[in-house]
């Protein structure tokens, strides 16, 4: 049974719940720092450890970021709402309740438009609400780092209390076979929007953005099926695979007349399958109630209007505009977006480079380096201004492509600005005809056969002599000048 055949008999309904860790300087309900990777339990205080008597106070920056996300997703912003307590037990959750939002979310009823295969799809947003993260449990003494076989469990509360925003879509029916691709495109679009707001680094691999994927299947014309929830999917590709594998798995059960149980499932990165987790048959009663330790949130409508007016250009609109301005193909633009290069290219052009020049360095040499080192393009070690300066040296004929790559290497290694690196490494193109004539004559003398061919009119053979001259001048000669000299010396 192929995937396409399955989709002729079943209609998928998907829904996504995305958690985004906000990049606020301090935690949501206390003044502790939020630096990633700090020593365990060094960013904690009585409040985030839930010591007896400690009380939360809401971080305005967290509320502001949530409202901006809501506005960017076309949501209505509540004029008055409250935080709620979600009561459940977990060893790394200090209060044994999570301060979250329940029936009074800060943002409701928005949408995100995504384009797949040239067609636009609208994904409805049910709600955007604010909550706090938990700590992390580490199991030590065992071979695997898992709880089985561990001799001790240690808890790191540094992450406890970091603001999280949860973005919940409405159930999305009618996507057919494209459901997995559209789910992926939605998460990508969401990531770009949030990145453009500068409220989170939205790194799925570091867990600052995590996705739960809900999938159900129904036969055409029938009611929606029972959904499963695949937890903590942590890459765009996995979002797509998780939806697809759930569609295949559920159709297999339904084909045999079986029933889908509402349950939590876990995505297996290695196999692309989902495995069962906690059954929802014994659903937890979270005993939600309004958080009495926090005053209600009542954002001033004037402030919300101000935030709305100051929203950055939508990434999709910006991409379309820039693609036009830069004369790039859809595919090039896509890879620039995926590499996080759009802003860098933009700044490089602003610093004086041509769009083609800027694109060449960021999507070529620098993207390759970032990839090799597993880092973000922005961290690769060159600034847009440096890239623009480099390209100008090429445009001015002071560097050729090969030499420019060597200069860039020096820039990335921290040897200084492009012009300085060029001088220090002695990489400038040699245009001095006198010095080149000797090298050309030498090449002609060493390759009499080729010289004869050229004299006979086979001008294309000159390339071989150019190569030989480049070799003796270690690439520093200007190829165009060399070629002209060769033809001149051979009297062609």
């Amino acid at each position: 049974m192929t995937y396409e055949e399955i989709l002729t008999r079943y209609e998928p309904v998907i829904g996504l719940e995305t958690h985004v860790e906000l990049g606020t300087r301090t935690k949501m309900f206390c003044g502790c720092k939020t630096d990633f990777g700090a020593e365990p339990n060094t960013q904690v205080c009585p409040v985030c450890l839930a010591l007896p008597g400690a009380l939360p106070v809401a971080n305005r920056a967290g509320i502001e970021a949530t409202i901006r996300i809501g506005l960017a997703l076309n949501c209505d912003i509540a004029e008055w709402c409250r935080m709620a307590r979600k009561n459940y037990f977990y060893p790394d959750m200090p209060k044994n309740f999570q301060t979250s939002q329940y029936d009074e979310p800060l943002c409701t009823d928005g949408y995100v438009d995504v384009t797949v295969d040239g067609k636009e799809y609208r994904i409805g947003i049910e709600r955007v609400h604010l909550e706090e993260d938990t700590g992390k449990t580490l199991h030590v003494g065992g071979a695997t780092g898992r709880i089985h076989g561990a001799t001790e469990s240690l808890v790191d509360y540094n992450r406890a209390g970091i603001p999280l925003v949860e973005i919940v879509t409405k159930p999305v029916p009618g996507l057919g076979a494209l459901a997995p691709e559209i789910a992926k495109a939605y998460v990508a679009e969401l990531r770009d929007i949030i990145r453009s707001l500068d409220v989170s680094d939205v790194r799925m691999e570091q867990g600052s953005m995590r996705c739960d994927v809900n999938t159900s299947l129904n036969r055409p014309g029938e009611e929606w099926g029972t959904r499963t929830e695949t937890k903590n999917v942590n890459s765009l590709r996995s979002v797509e695979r998780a939806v697809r594998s759930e569609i295949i798995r559920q159709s297999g059960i339904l084909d045999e007349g079986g029933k889908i149980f509402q349950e939590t499932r876990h995505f297996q990165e290695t196999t692309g399958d989902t495995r069962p987790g906690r059954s929802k048959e014994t659903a937890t009663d979270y005993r939600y109630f309004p958080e009495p330790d926090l005053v209600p949130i009542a954002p001033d409508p004037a402030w919300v209007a101000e935030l709305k007016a100051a929203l950055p250009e939508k990434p999709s609109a910006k991409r379309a505009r820039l693609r036009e301005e830069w004369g790039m193909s859809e595919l090039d633009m896509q890879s620039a977006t995926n590499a996080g290069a759009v802003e860098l290219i933009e700044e490089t052009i602003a610093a004086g480079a041509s769009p083609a020049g800027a694109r060449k360095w960021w999507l070529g040499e620098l993207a390759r380096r970032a990839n090799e080192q597993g880092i973000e393009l922005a961290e690769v070690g060159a600034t847009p201004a440096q890239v623009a300066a480099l390209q100008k040296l090429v445009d001015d004929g002071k560097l050729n492509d090969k030499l420019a790559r060597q200069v860039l290497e020096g820039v990335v290694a921290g040897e200084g600005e492009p012009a300085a690196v060029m001088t220090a490494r002695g990489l400038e193109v040699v245009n001095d005809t006198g010095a080149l004539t000797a090298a050309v004559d030498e090449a002609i003398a060493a390759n009499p056969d080729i010289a004869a061919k050229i004299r006979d009119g086979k001008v294309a053979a000159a390339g071989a002599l150019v190569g030989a001259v480049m070799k003796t001048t270690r690439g520093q000669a200007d190829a165009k000048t060399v070629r002209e000299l060769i033809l001149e010396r051979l009297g062609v």
Partner: protein
Amino acid sequence: MTDLTRMSAADLSKLITAKEVSAVEVATAHLDRISAVDDRVHAFLHVDREGALEAAARVDRGEVTGPLAGVPIAVKDVVTTKGIPTTAASKILEGWKPPYDATIVERLKKAGMPILGKTNMDEFAMGSSTEYSAYGPTNNPWDLGRIPGGSGGGSAAALAAYEAPLAIGTDTGGSIRQPGAVTGTVGAKPTYGGTSRYGLIAFSSSLDTPGPCARTVEDAALLHAVIAGHDPRDSTSIPQPVPDVVAAARLGKQGDLSGVKLGVVKEFTGDGSEPGVSAAFKDSLEALVKLGAEIVEVSCPNFQYALPAYYLIAPSECSSNLARFDGVRYGLREGDDGNRSLEEVMSLTREAGFGAEVKRRIIIGTYALSSGYYDAYYGQAQKVRTLITRDFQSAFEKVDVLVSPTTPFVAFPFGSRTSDPYQMYLADLFTIPTNLYGGPAISVPCGLSEGLPVGFQIMAPTMADDRMYRVAAALESAVGTLTPPAL
């Protein structure tokens, strides 16, 4: 020289400021008194002799000054004190030393008030008799066979036994006022949000209010002024100036209440109170009329639902607030022998760590908040709370303050109500409406019934704490203070 332990805080302060006595002498006198009588009263769970004397010495060296500098104080054990054990009278926190001070404790220290120690209470402030302390009850200095009220029985008894001139209490449903009433002392619940809850081990967050316990109204006002005021660490703390309660108390002391309208709550004057309590209350009203006050009967029809609403809201919040006591980070941990699951360790810890009343309320609250019952119980109770607030608001359109007895009965003998929780809950019948509303209220001694103190309650609109102090001081000037029998 007169006995320093018998003096009011205001008088002690005068002597210390005039350098007629040293703060160390004052602290020593109280510490010695504690040593002499506390084995019979058991007002204290922990005495910090060293810390108190050190703080007193700083005052004597002139390092700290202020209206109450050098006046010692006892602090209810539900308020965190850095480095001093804080247990909320529960086994689950036995020996826990907080790494930080509650905001009100910071303010006491800044004011130069030596902290004598931590006072006994009902476990996690749940109770009306201090019989639910995990460390044994406190005895009422008026009759050692009777309860000192609850949950702040330790703080009230410490005052009545002259072990401390001032104490800190917390009031969730009457835990400052009811012990004040049954020990013949003054207890004030400030406006909710007027005093910071930061560092107060939470029982019911939307109700808990720390406040002053004293032997005179002026002393209570002086302490109120030290601890009240906005605290950015408590989101529910009110960012407004504190009313001048000290001036109001001094004004009231002059005994003139002309033009002041006192509302008598009709629903509180019917049955329910002991005859002696009703009589003392009536006599006090007459005394207040003589000072020029006008008595107006007002109806607050929803007050009759306050008790059931409270006994849904408070346990609901407590079931969530006490969830943090799980044996993971601090306090007791039972059964962690390497062979038991997390759930088993948590369960054994709570089984051993929480007393019966605490468990009862956690179970009630868990039930009331559960999804199938939320609307019927918690939701309904919140609606009642709104109605009670409206009762107060409409009453305060007609009168300046509301008055009632503080408790329907005087101190009862130990064990007489523990077998019937509902009988115990009735002790807070008159005090609870104010907590649901959030306004301030005070209990002032107003006479005796069967040789035991009776309390008079004055309730005011939110942030009108000064108004209640004025009436309270006037009443005190008319009926005098009470002196317990010698221990």
